[in-house]
């Protein structure tokens, strides 16, 4: 397990527990008691720390390398997953994965950013930063889902669209714009879940949805705290201030009306108990999908468009 800087006291206790566990071969009863005592302390500390994470700490949790990613969710929630590759114009972008499958028995199209889990896969998926081909694939799959009356589930987890020469040459801006347009044009339900980082245009490209769910410690923002600090504060030391000012936490975004529902995370964040997190997101998706499915396609589309037009009318309330 990787520990974040503010989790240091927790990490130290966990290390102590681990040490005691190795000793407990010598079957002394008071070691077990000591382990229990420390475990309670760890839980209390985790609860206290995670109850009042600052926006910058949440940013670190949202980017945690052990946080469950797209492929983890798909492996546990989607049966018969059949990935579909390519934008039919230039190439396939592994930073966005998409495909057909079954969610709780129902056919779905699943699309999302994949960041990768080790050096090799991170490089292969370009750390979840998509090129135009990724967004064009997303659009193609959304249009296909629309034709077959299959709902679309998206999982958002990206620092942002890839800022490279090749991406610009092939029309990154246009690809994102068309992908947003495709989301807003669907006559089937589209449900987006922000599972980690929701980085700017690269995120909303697949998140202009009927229902936007967001994990408790995820972030969603127009710019990264680092980028904002370097532009507005003109230094890199104000990252924490920028994270604060941007209101990028699920709690603030819910108040602003930019997301629809917050999905709680297990004690210590999604990375402390990935399976519990994946299962609980599954419940939230199922409930919201059940609500959207009976609606007429035209009504869904009109309602989605009106929803976005109405966002932001009330400020932080």
């Amino acid at each position: 397990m990787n520990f974040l800087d503010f989790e240091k006291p927790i990490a130290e206790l966990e290390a102590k527990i681990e040490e005691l566990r190795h000793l407990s071969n010598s079957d002394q009863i008071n070691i077990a008691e000591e382990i229990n005592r420390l475990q309670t302390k760890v839980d209390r500390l985790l609860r206290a720390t995670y109850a009042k994470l600052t926006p910058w700490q949440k940013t670190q949790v949202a980017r945690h390398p052990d946080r469950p990613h797209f492929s983890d969710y798909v492996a546990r929630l989607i049966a018969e997953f059949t990935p579909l590759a390519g934008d039919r114009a230039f190439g396939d972008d592994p930073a966005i994965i998409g495909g057909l499958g079954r969610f709780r028995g129902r056919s779905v199209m699943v699309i999302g950013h994949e960041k990768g889990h080790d050096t090799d896969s991170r490089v292969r998926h370009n750390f979840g930063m998509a090129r135009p081909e990724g967004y064009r694939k997303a659009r193609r799959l959304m249009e296909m889902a629309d034709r077959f009356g299959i709902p679309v589930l998206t999982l958002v987890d990206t620092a942002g669209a890839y800022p490279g020469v090749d991406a610009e040459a092939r029309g990154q801006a246009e690809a994102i714009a068309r992908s947003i347009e495709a989301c807003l044009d669907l006559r089937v339900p589209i449900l987006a879940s922000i599972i980690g980082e929701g980085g700017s245009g690269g995120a909303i490209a697949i998140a202009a949805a009927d229902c936007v769910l967001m994990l408790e410690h995820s972030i969603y923002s127009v710019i990264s705290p680092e980028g904002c600090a370097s532009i507005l504060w003109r230094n890199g030391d104000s990252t924490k201030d920028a994270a604060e000012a941007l209101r990028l936490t699920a709690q603030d975004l819910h108040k602003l009306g930019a997301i629809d529902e917050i999905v709680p995370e297990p004690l210590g964040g999604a990375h402390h108990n990935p399976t519990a997190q994946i299962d609980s997101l599954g419940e939230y998706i199922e409930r919201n999908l059940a609500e959207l499915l009976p609606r007429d396609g035209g009504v869904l589309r009109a309602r989605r468009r009106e929803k976005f037009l109405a966002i932001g009318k009330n400020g932080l309330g």
Partner: protein
Amino acid sequence: MSWLTNFVRPKIQSLVRPREVPENLWDKCPQCGNMIYRRDLEKSLYVCPHCGHHLRLPAKNRLAMLFDEGKHQRIELPKTPVDPLRFRDSKRYTDRLKEAQAKSGEQDALIVAHGRIGGVAAVVAVFDFDFMGGSMGMAVGDGLIAAAELAVLQEAALIVVPASGGARMQEGVLSLMQLARTTVAVDKVKERRLPYVVLLTDPTTGGVSASFAMLGDIHIAEPGAQIGFAGTRVIETTIREKLPDGFQRAEYLLEHGMVDMVVPRAQLRDTLARILGILRHRGPAGEVLSLVPQTGAADAEPGH
């Protein structure tokens, strides 16, 4: 509200104010470095007479230039909640807004007007780059929605002229939401089969390029305009790649298939008028569509 009070009078006032005379009489071309007499610059639509470089054209001059005889009517834009996030960096966002408003005399970075272009009814929404870099927040989004709704109401063409660094950071995720909101807005116009033309000017980047600005029926770019998603500095620092010559310039986008044409400012109005005319005035239906031979025409035809 007219061209006279909005544009001519302040211009005259700025010219007669003695303290500012030295700065206002001459401008330096950022491209070739030559000095340009201000009145020449205005006559040439802010195109450098020495090298042809297209300087940024103030929003009001843009409106005057696009409409028939410069005649147009500004529309009042909806009031928008100010500073929804209570954002503050080294300065309060509300203070930055007030400064920009005082400097420009406008409420925000978008101006909307309607009138005729080549006789065709048109609604034009122009970004004011001088207003916080033309950045797009709630007010700009609302302005574009109002412009699109007016175009639908008047069965007019919608022309948008972006000049923007992208989304307005000080409005956080709400500025990001404008990507979806403005997409819905321009789609309303397109659904009604009314022309939606984007006139891409320097610069069109970030969230503005990644939404309505790349969704036009026709994309016309001004020569040399920077158009792209990521800023050049961001690309250079994060990727450590050397950027090719002319990268993200209008001509580069033309070469890469992202715009229909690059048109010098002097020919812009006529080009736009021609396109709108062809799209909107499709000629007498009988002459174009009739497949039935006209009486007498067959007899006159020899040899059949």
